[in-house]
């Protein structure tokens, strides 16, 4: 392992984040506050409780998941796409590093950034609602795994994309709808029975449900199923990345 190289990539990627540090903090804080005003105060005042939890608190895990997933994808996909776009990828290809090391650097940095933003939202949320976390280790495990697996997905998208439109396509057309329909702002049990069954095909449901369980001890699906789902998703991303590594797909002619 060329740890010096992994650190160089990680540091370089994080430097971009640090340069725009203020934006990096302000945007999640503002958007979280907006969600609380709209969903928590305006709509939430008419919903009261979901499964015995105040609606404002209920949406926190979903809100964190929503932001963390999109941030992890956009950071990782941009991180690897930008060198491809401006041509500096030549240096990565000619460096004495393996593809695994490139991934550790880029995905590690993207996961760190989204994890940081997730924590920022959690802290902001405590100003609006009373929050209890029933199972801290599970909460952190779900958060870290989600950051990592979606950063991996973002990395794959960044490798696949051959223009900026494609870079936006998957997050916009696939991920955002899945996250919104994945129970970020409602419990699956609130849906008509038919749509409850459909929702079970949405992988994001399992992530949000498991994450919510770690806060409130209640979930749409059993927590072990959630854990298996996130493990399975991570494994799928790792396998895809491994295949890209083996074939040099879209990277090395």
């Amino acid at each position: 392992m060329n740890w010096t190289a992994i650190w160089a990539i990680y540091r370089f990627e994080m430097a971009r984040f640090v340069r725009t540090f203020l934006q990096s903090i302000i945007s999640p804080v503002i958007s979280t506050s907006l969600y609380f005003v709209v969903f928590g105060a305006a709509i939430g005042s008419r919903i009261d409780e979901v499964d015995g939890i105040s609606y404002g608190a209920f949406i926190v895990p979903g809100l964190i998941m929503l932001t963390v997933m999109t941030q992890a994808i956009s950071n990782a996909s941009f991180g690897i796409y930008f060198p491809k776009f401006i041509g500096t990828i030549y240096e990565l290809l000619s460096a004495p590093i393996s593809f695994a090391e490139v991934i550790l650097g880029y995905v590690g940095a993207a996961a760190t950034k989204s994890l940081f933003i997730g924590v920022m939202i959690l802290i902001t949320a405590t100003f609006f609602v009373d929050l209890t976390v029933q199972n801290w280790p599970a909460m952190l495990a779900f958060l870290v795994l989600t950051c990592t697996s979606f950063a991996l997905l973002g990395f794959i998208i960044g490798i696949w994309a051959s223009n900026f439109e494609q870079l936006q396509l998957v997050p916009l057309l696939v991920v955002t709808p899945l996250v919104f329909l994945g129970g970020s702002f409602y419990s699956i049990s609130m849906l008509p029975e038919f749509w409850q069954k459909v929702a079970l095909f949405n992988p994001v449901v399992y992530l949000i449900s498991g994450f919510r369980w770690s806060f409130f001890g209640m979930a749409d699906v059993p927590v072990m199923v959630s854990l298996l789902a996130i493990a399975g998703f991570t494994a799928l991303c790792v396998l895809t990345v491994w295949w890209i590594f083996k074939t040099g797909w879209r990277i090395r002619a």
Partner: protein
Amino acid sequence: MAGMVEIENAEKTYDGGFQALKGVSLSIEEGEILALLGPNGAGKTTLISTICGITMPTGGSIRVGGHDVVRDFRAARSLVGLVPQELTLEPFETVWSAVRFSRGLFGAKRDDAYLDELLRRLSLYDKKHSQLQELSGGMKRRVLIAKALSHDPKVLFLDEPTAGVDVELRRDMWDIVAKLKETGVTIILTTHYIEEAEAMADRIGVISAGELLLVEKTTDLMARLGRKELRIALSAPIETVPEGLSDYDLRLEDEGETLIYTYDTQAERTGIARLIGSLSEAGLSIADVETTQSSLEEIFVGLVRKEDDEGDAA
């Protein structure tokens, strides 16, 4: 002794079926400067990319410092620095963060003193904290060289170092290369300017349509390029070259109407004045004279034709 870079029968066929390299073999000695000369699309950049790991060879073997570039890529690539043709740099980074990143990427331990010295050598030190997008084209080229040298490589590849660079900067680049050679770095550069190859290189390799046509010492190739022909149209045709002219390198063409004299432009004397005198002594009168030079293109054509003939014969 094995060369610093050993290329044996290297082949590269792209997925689309285009064969960019057709079995190139080449050995480059340590500390040598080799210029790869050839027209656009000849395979110069492909050859460099294949050695540096940007594309994978589809046949043959390539070793740098004795390490195979595919099987032992870490050891091989650690020895290599690459300066690409395009000015590709992250616009918002500073010179300093760019060179530091490159050094780390190649697995070298942090060494600020070395990087400071490198920036001084390339007259970049006072731009150390400037953003890359603020720099001029020439300065960007220097940053690319600094990045390539940041891990103290033994072999440096310069892909078209003077493409799109004005005359002054070109001289600058030649000076930089000369200084690098003094530090013992092996340099391989590509160009399609003959005078550039002449100014910098110890040896010149001519590459065309994916094949290495020749590799020669620069001085030898220049001597061949330096030969000119004086074509003398005679007023009346002759059967044979007269006895009194046998000292000269002469041949007859056009059924005795043209005498051709081959001479070296770089020699102290071309012998032309003496020849004109000897011609009138031999009683030949001159209708017209003309000089022609064998250009690089003609050498190309000659080489390609020779290969075709050999191919037909086989």
